[in-house]
């Protein structure tokens, strides 16, 4: 057990949730990014999280990797678009804004919960540091 464990664990939780927020904001900002029909559409980015030493050791959470969604997209007829092919089609990413907003809220609330843990832990550690001062 390391000193001030709760702080580093909550810190790892904040980091993981912030990376999730980053991925969601990237997905939302590219929700209307067109691409050529010959190429992949923008792929939704999903963060995979994993417990650190689950059930043993110090604990915490880490981002284990990223999974990309399908690049298939949906084909839209937009002959004015400079990226349009001979038939006047372009591809838009097939990302659901509702899903992304739900994930945004989950990531945000998770981040806040971890920030609260840091507050609580700091209070307890501060009190412990006053021990024996009389």
């Amino acid at each position, binding site marked *: *057990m390391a000193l001030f*464990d*709760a*702080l580093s*664990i*909550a810190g*790892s*939780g904040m980091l*993981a*949730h912030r990376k*999730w927020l980053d991925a969601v904001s990237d997905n939302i900002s590219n929700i209307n990014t067109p691409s050529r029909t010959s190429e992949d559409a923008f792929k939704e980015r999903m963060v995979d*999280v*994993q*417990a650190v030493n*689950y*059930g043993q050791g*110090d*604990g*915490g*959470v880490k981002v284990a990797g990223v999974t990309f969604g399908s690049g298939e997209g949906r084909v839209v007829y937009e002959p004015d678009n400079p990226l349009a092919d001979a038939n006047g089609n372009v591809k838009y990413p097939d990302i659901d804004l509702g899903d992304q907003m739900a994930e945004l809220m*989950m*990531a945000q*609330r*998770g981040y806040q*919960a*971890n920030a*609260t*843990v840091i507050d*609580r*832990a700091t*209070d*307890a550690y501060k*009190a*412990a540091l*006053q*021990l*024996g001062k*009389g």
Partner: protein
Amino acid sequence: MTMIEDRTMTALHSALTGLSERQRVTADNIANINTPGFLAGRTDFESALKAQISGGDTPTISGGTVARSLEPTNTNGNNVNLDSETVIATETGLRYQLALNALDGKYSLLRSALKTT
């Protein structure tokens, strides 16, 4: 048992260690609130401490044992509840302060004994 540290203080020390372990486990649970397949950890140091005190032994300083919660999981196999974790965190924080205050009281008794000439 020494002159400075009696059984009460060892028991309080043990409680502080157990409570700080529970605080660590709660932080771990909240950090993993969105981790698929994560089961919340539950710390128990009270039963061992109680057995040692009622048996008349000097308590050992230990963080207790961590078991995994058997509560039902949600669709991603995670069973961390933010509300119960918050309650545990609040209660653990208050009990930690209480044990610290009690230990502080013992220390101030010792200090006043040392000051007497």
